[in-house]
């Protein structure tokens, strides 16, 4: 049987959530059938539940707050932001509302909402439709940030997010939508041994050596997971270097344990993210890991991310900006002592 694509898994999860819970509603731009949302994740929902799917004006600044008000008053709203870049318009509501209501109102309210954010480049959409803005969310206290990849059970993660009592920002990489779901068979995905942590938003750990003789940990999430897995595989074939890939799904609160466990085995860490490097996931992770596992590290931690600048539209210019396999290979080789 051909593996299903991530977009279909997410769509299936939404249909099941709508069947299971009367309090789930979906709002967003262009989400009605037959269009079903810019990336088709919402397809079929408005036909089956016309009263619970509301297509909106182009008003992200208000829609984010609208979702908060709905959640406080007992619904389980899901907001689809067409391109994750547009969440910038709703940032006030995140910083001054969603992240604060529960604590500043002394636990008298909860804000159980999900805001779905298609992020990432690689499609030539240019500077304002290609970004990965997770770092603007992981710096906000009291929100949960989840990012998914095809190596995760994406349907289970979306279901867990909608059933979470805390506000969840759910990051979906745009290139991932069309990719086939990668589920382990007999504990393996391809050549790599695969383990998932037991948490609400599991981390996936992949190893080329049964987690026994890997020499570098590659910590990543979301759309960069496939690059990490492909590179880890090629490093085995071309350099006989074994790596562990740890792909988090819970970026905030930072799911540190799986990375620390891996670093204790490998003694070296590369962080990999698609967003611009400064002040990002890798910076946060580096500070956290060195504080806990300094004695386990053989070499300084290496960070890989997009260059600090815009993401150009032209394919070659965009590719030059975003992290590439060569960046990751170079970083791993520098940590294993091999000369490039």
């Amino acid at each position, binding site marked *: 049987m051909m593996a299903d694509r991530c977009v279909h898994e997410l769509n299936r999860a939404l249909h099941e959530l709508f069947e299971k819970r009367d309090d789930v509603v979906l709002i967003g731009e262009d989400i009605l059938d037959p269009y079903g949302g810019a990336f088709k994740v919402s397809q079929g929902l408005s036909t089956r539940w016309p009263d619970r799917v509301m297509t909106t004006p182009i008003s992200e600044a208000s829609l984010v707050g609208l979702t908060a008000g709905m959640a406080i008053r*007992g619904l389980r709203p899901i907001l689809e932001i067409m391109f994750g870049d547009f969440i910038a318009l709703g940032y006030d509501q995140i910083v001054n509302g969603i992240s604060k209501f529960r604590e500043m109102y002394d636990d008298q309210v909860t804000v159980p909402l999900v805001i779905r954010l298609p992020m990432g480049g690689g499609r030539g959409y240019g500077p304002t439709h290609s970004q990965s803005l997770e770092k603007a969310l992981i710096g906000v206290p009291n929100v949960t940030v989840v990012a998914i990849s095809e190596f995760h059970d994406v349907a289970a993660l979306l279901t867990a997010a909608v059933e979470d009592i805390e506000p969840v920002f759910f990051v979906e990489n745009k290139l991932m939508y069309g990719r086939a779901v990668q589920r382990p068979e007999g504990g393996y995905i391809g050549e790599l041994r695969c383990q998932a942590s037991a948490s609400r938003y599991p981390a996936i750990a992949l190893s080329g050596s049964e987690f026994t003789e890997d020499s570098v940990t590659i910590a990543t999430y979301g759309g960069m997971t496939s690059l990490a897995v492909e590179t880890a595989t090629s490093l085995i074939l071309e350099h006989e270097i074994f790596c562990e890939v740890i792909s988090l799904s819970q970026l905030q609160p930072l799911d540190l344990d799986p990375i620390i466990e891996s670093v204790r085995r490998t003694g070296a860490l590369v962080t990999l993210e698609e967003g611009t490097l400064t002040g990002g996931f890798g910076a946060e992770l580096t500070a956290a890991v060195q504080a806990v596992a300094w004695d386990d590290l053989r070499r300084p931690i290496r960070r890989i991310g997009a260059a600090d600048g815009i993401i150009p539209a032209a394919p070659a210019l965009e590719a030059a900006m975003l992290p590439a396999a060569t960046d990751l290979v170079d970083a791993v080789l520098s940590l294993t002592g091999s000369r490039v």
Partner: protein
Amino acid sequence: MSSEQPDEMSLPARFYAEMYLIRRFEETLLEMFSAGKLVGTTHTCIGQEANAVGVIAALEPERDIVFSNHRCHGHYLAFTDDPRGLLCEVMGREGGTCGGKGGSQHLCRGNFYSNGVQGSIVPVATGMALAEREKGSNAVTTVFLGDGTLGQGTVYECMNLASAWSLPLLIVVENNFYAQSTPSSLTLAGSIPSRAEAFDIDTQHLDTTDVQPIHEAARAAITSVRETGRPFCLVLDTYRFSPHSKGDDNRDEAEIEARRTRDPLLITSAQLPEAERLEIERSCEARLEGEVAHAEASAVAGAAA
């Protein structure tokens, strides 16, 4: 919600008692700031009390929702009749409405909410109105904003949404002609009512500080929202005698004095027999004195942590 007053009180007497409590509560806060007994910030509505009292008296606090802004004490007291919780909150004492975490601008109790960022408030209130419609509760959500907040684009996004989706939302614009220290003549174009009317929202504009006509207009507006499920906008011209916050007032004294003839407390007290007025004031002063003593005797929030 005036549990402290006997049921047989006339409407003007009840309104006067509520407005007097708000006035004296906030004057007490300003006195405490001057005496160094309060820290942080506060935004009083001294002069605007008729709006809070007149509008909220037409709501059902068990069902209806109020979302207020930084200038929220009057709305809170009119909706909850809880000076104790508010005073402890502002003073950072145990027993505060939000355990001392919110302070003056960030309140929550029952169906009452407030927040301190102007552009943030209307969208959340609109979402609450949408949720109540989905739940079929027939609740009316009332959001209070000032003329200064009309500078926020989200207000118009939400007027559009509330009208396009037929949401049970009452938008009350308290137009006091100043955004903090800036007169609206420098920053506000066109007319305020026509902004709501442009979205096909029924709108009423009142230039009065008399609580009775404000209450009657609010009753009609709330009945309309409840029966039609459509939004309504009430624009209430008013005037703030107190500074925006504390000591940040550069207005012409003569302008403020001229407006004092329209003090809502004077207007309503003139309708009461002298003895009744004095009894309301005496009773309120005694209550407030008791609340101050209670708050001052309460433990400092967080001291035990």
